């Protein structure tokens, strides 16, 4: 056992000193390889973190939103619609929502003004999203002025800034009282922007939707799944991420192909012949090649992973932010909660480390297996 460990140690020592003799080439491979791992890992971390965050946030989203369409356009909903939906068997937690977009010329940003029933900031007060706070350097105690439909200014005292944890969906939010909202947007009493509801039994949601459609032919229904699809589209998972993954994979493959093309040079073959001539066994040569591949690929894997972690979770994913940003001027800061899946890490390891080790060991098999004299003469 001790001899085995000693043998491994000696081969590793030899491999490291051999690698250090070709610093330039090994460093170039390491940089390209780390870059490929970095890109792959960044995309994986980002997709997984966004998806996890979205799922967590969407748990709070309403099961069903009912809007009223007028000439194909979203229109205000009278109280009679609220009463009609409430009367349907199986409809629960029917709520009238008030929300609307507001363009602020001073910061040149769009805000989403909302007057929820559950979060009452009080008249003349506002709870703002982290993006609104950052864009305006606005904090509790400051006064935010909003120009209403009649040109009158409405002063809103900022009472709280929403937690940055939920900023993907709340970055541009301004929560105000229903009275202020109705004054700003000129909403007549009893009217609302839309309705939200849940089904008494989740399985009955399609039946409930059909009943609403029957009762209110001009209603547009948006389910939580629709919101999820829109959300997915907003971040352009399918096109943006797959493109990035493919380009990163192509880079990794190109790197491996390049290394294999360098492959076993005459010098490498000669070295193997000499090692065999001085008593190395085939297994020793292959072990050396294994360690050579392992040192390079593991170093690239670890550095790529660490760089990707820093990029996605500490430095905001600056490289991918343009792909992820929506139409709003108030972009979320993309400070994502670090969700990392072990399966993801294993997949990344299999995709990046194992092919490289295989590509390093395989070409050495034949020169290591044949007679050293034949190798040296070749």
């Amino acid at each position, binding site marked *: 056992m001790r001899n085995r460990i000693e043998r491994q140690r000696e081969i590793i020592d030899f491999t490291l000193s051999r690698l250090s003799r070709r610093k330039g080439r090994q460093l170039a491979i390491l940089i390209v390889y780390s870059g490929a791992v970095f890109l792959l890992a960044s995309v994986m971390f980002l997709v997984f973190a966004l998806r996890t965050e979205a799922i967590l946030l969407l748990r709070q989203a309403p099961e069903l939103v009912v809007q009223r369409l007028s000439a194909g356009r979203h229109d205000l909903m009278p109280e009679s619609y609220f009463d009609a939906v409430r009367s349907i068997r199986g409809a629960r937690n029917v709520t009238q929502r008030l929300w609307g977009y507001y363009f*602020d*010329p*001073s*910061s*040149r940003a769009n805000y989403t003004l909302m007057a929820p029933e559950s979060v009452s900031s009080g008249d003349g007060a506002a709870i703002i999203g982290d993006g609104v706070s*950052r*864009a*305006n*350097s*606005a*904090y509790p*105690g*400051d*006064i*935010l*002025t*909003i*120009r209403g439909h009649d040109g009158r*200014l409405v*002063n809103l005292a900022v009472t709280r800034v929403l937690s940055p944890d939920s900023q993907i969906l709340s970055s541009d939010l301004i929560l105000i009282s229903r009275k202020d909202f109705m004054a700003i947007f000129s909403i007549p009493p009893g009217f609302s922007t839309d309705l939200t509801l849940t089904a008494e039994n989740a399985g009955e949601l399609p039946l409930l939707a059909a009943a609403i459609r029957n009762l209110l032919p001009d209603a547009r229904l948006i389910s939580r799944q629709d919101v999820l699809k829109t959300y997915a589209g907003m971040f352009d998972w399918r096109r943006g991420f797959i493109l990035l993954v493919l380009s990163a994979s192509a880079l990794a493959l190109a790197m491996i192909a390049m290394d294999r093309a360098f492959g076993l040079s005459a010098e490498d073959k000669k070295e193997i012949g000499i090692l065999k001539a001085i008593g190395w066994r085939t297994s020793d040569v292959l072990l050396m090649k294994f360690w050579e591949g392992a040192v390079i690929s593991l170093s690239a894997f670890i550095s790529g992973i660490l760089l990707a972690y820093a990029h996605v979770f500490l430095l905001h994913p600056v490289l991918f932010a343009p792909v992820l940003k929506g139409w709003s001027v108030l972009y979320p800061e993309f400070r994502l909660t670090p969700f990392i899946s072990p399966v993801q890490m294993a997949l990344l390891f299999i995709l990046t480390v194992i092919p490289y080790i295989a590509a390093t060991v395989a070409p050495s098999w034949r020169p290591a297996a044949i007679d050293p004299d034949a190798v040296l003469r070749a």
Partner: protein
Amino acid sequence: MMRGKAGKFPWAGILLLGILSFSMNAAGKTPVRIGDPFPSFSLPDLSGSSLSLPGGMSGKVVIIHFWTDSCGNCRDEMPALETLYRHYGGRGLGIVAINVGQSVAQVAKFVDGLKITYPVLLDADGKAAAICGVFGLPRTFILDREGVIRQKIIGEATEETLKKLLLPIL
């Protein structure tokens, strides 16, 4: 000549603020909040004389108004501030308007037209605005006699609003 150039770039001031905002955030500077002492800096006025803030207004309740003439609403606020200045100047109210990112000629023309008598300072490179966390215009700060920020208004402010916020500390 300068007027013409500045006129071509009405959003230059806001763009400048955006760039400074980014560099401020990147540098991780502490935001300016209510209850903080107003940051110290000096800026030139239209005649080239320098005024230090808040030191140059010590002992007064001060309204500091950041503006640019490309912001349409600023045209209404500047005369409102003048009315307050004339009314409460004798009781220790000081008003300073800081133009962000515009030329002397452009600012002078705007000010002359409005017959403003309170000091108008020039923050040509937007550095003072960035120090104060001003990333959009207009922005208004109200300082007490010790130079501490008592109110911050994000966006436009009417004369009534300013008066309401001002009187308790005047």
